[in-house]
């Protein structure tokens, strides 16, 4: 039930005393992933890279849905904004890769603030509709602002990442080097996410999700923290978009299609909303595996659809808790 705003059990995720265990699991996963290029072929590495690009917007959605309790469909709008702004900056001014990432993240975060002003006053489905609207409008702008975005053609020949080093640096071109870049980014993103949600701001967000009226009555500036969650979720998505565009080197308005937004939703809900491990699991399971198995898109979407239905009713906490239920069972503190 951790996905709901009225959730009563979610808090045990953060009160879990087995942090050491989680850290160990995380380290094992990172080492396994770091060793993956030794055994995996280019196509498998590509699938892993794609799943790691989805990990960032998924972490952003996890922040706003899992921690602030609001279901936002704007993630792919911010992902696209990050991708476009990063690509345009790089193409126009030849900026270095790290700066493009910053530009992508900041652009998304900055756009999120004025959008959040009307949207965050809304509750429940009105908020959902409003954020869905952002994606629709972003797509219309991307299609029609032809002088900048080149409309439906999209942008191509986006520069590949250049890593500046003492010897002048190098351009990332091989799949393996992209893979390591994605892995480093993902690890940093996960660490940033963990730091964020265990900070005071993270606790306030959880308090607001659990009981907004109560949080407000004890003086929590609820609007303020919802805005922070919304803007930061956009930053995560924007950085993801930036990496995406420098990997694929092309971008078009199709990035705003509901297909991608649905994939992000499947990752977060299917993996385990309100957990980091769940989102990581979801990214690999739902993107890498289906990508690597080369499942036909229509069959994959049917499977996604059935999975969504089964998950919400059978295991509304996502698949991660199923995997680690035994471990969790002893450490859970149910708050009635």
């Amino acid at each position, binding site marked *: 039930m951790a996905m709901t705003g009225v959730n009563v059990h979610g808090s045990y995720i953060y009160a879990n005393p087995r942090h050491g265990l989680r850290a160990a699991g995380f380290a094992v996963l990172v080492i396994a992933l770091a060793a993956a290029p030794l055994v995996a072929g280019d196509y498998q590495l590509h699938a892993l890279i794609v799943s790691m690009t989805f990990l960032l917007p998924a972490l952003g959605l996890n922040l706003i849905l899992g921690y602030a309790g609001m279901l936002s469909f704007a993630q792919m709008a911010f992902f696209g904004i990050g991708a476009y702004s990063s690509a345009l900056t790089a193409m126009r001014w030849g900026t270095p890769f790290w700066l493009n990432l910053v530009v992508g993240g900041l652009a998304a975060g900055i756009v999120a603030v004025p959008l959040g002003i009307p949207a965050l*006053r809304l509750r429940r489905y009105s908020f959902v*509709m409003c954020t869905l609207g952002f994606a629709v409008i972003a797509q219309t702008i991307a299609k029609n602002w032809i002088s900048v975005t080149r409309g439906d053609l999209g942008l191509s020949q986006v520069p590949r990442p250049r890593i500046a080093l003492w010897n002048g640096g190098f351009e990332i071109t091989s799949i393996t080097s992209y893979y390591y870049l994605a892995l480093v980014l993902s690890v940093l993103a996960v660490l940033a996410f963990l730091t964020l949600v265990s900070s005071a701001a993270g606790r306030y967000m959880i308090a607001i999700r659990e009981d907004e009226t109560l949080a407000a009555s004890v003086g929590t500036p609820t609007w303020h923290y919802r805005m922070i969650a919304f803007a930061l979720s956009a930053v995560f998505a924007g950085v993801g978009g930036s990496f995406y565009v420098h990997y694929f080197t092309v971008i078009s308005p199709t990035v705003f299609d509901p297909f991608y937004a649905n994939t992000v939703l499947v990752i977060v809900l299917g993996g385990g909303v309100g957990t980091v491990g769940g989102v990581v699991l979801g990214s690999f399971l739902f993107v890498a595996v289906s990508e690597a198995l080369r499942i036909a898109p229509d*069959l994959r979407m049917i499977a996604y*659809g059935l999975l969504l*239905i089964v998950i*919400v009713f059978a295991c509304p906490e996502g698949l991660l808790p199923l995997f680690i239920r035994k471990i969790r069972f002893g450490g859970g503190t149910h708050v009635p």
Partner: protein
Amino acid sequence: MLTDAVVNGITAGSVYALVAVGMTIIFGVLRAINFAHGEFYMLGTFGAWWGIETLDLPYIVSIPLALIIVAAIALAVGVLVMKRLIDQPFQIGIVATLGVSLVLQNVIILIFGGAYKMFDGGWIEPVEILGISLSEQRILIVVAALVIFGLLELMVHRTRFGKTIRAVSQNIEACKVVGVNVPVVVIGTFVLGCTLAALSGVLTAPVTVSLYGGMGTSITVKTFAIIVMGGVGNVSGTLFAAWILGLMESFVASYLGLQFRDAVAFTALIVVLTLLPGGLFSKRERF
């Protein structure tokens, strides 16, 4: 150009209204937004197209055929999925219906292929009324919308089923206390709402001509904008909001450019929500 824009706007608005009113009554009883609603519009169109192309039926016969097929599918979805949404938090409904939408859309693509199909049927002969030339099909759409809305108003206020729908949307606990069979009402309302969406699809197909598996998504998305603007659960508000959106889109398409049309709904929605969080026609009486 002005009269064309108005006629197109009212026609499009009536199409949206028939889809949206189904979603709004479903929302009323379930407090769940049906992300699969546009898929039932698509299924209606496909049902009629299949009747015409494969069974060689005339359009008029393929209309009830399509409605029966869609009602059966809606019944299955209602029993398997929607019934379980009673008393669930709203996110559960969003995710479950999103799942239904993915399944329906891609099953159709799997069966019929992803390419666009041509709809060959309907009454597209132009007729002249008060100096305005328009196709018979457009008149049919507008008349059908008016008749259906009249019947819906009568139903919710005069019939037992209608009163029960209102009761479920007002207080689900009280329904249990007086012994209303809530799951049956929920499934019945869902089938009714989806069949109305299908009717809209069948009636519109001769005008829009092309159909494809993914056509429901943009309808769903516009319908969201309409029901929020009309005040969620408000039947007559839905009709007016749908007409207003149809007219706005039509004017934007005529005077600014067709490519901006699809952003109108959400721009309007965001403006409306910013100014009036309760919607344009927010009043306490919902039906």
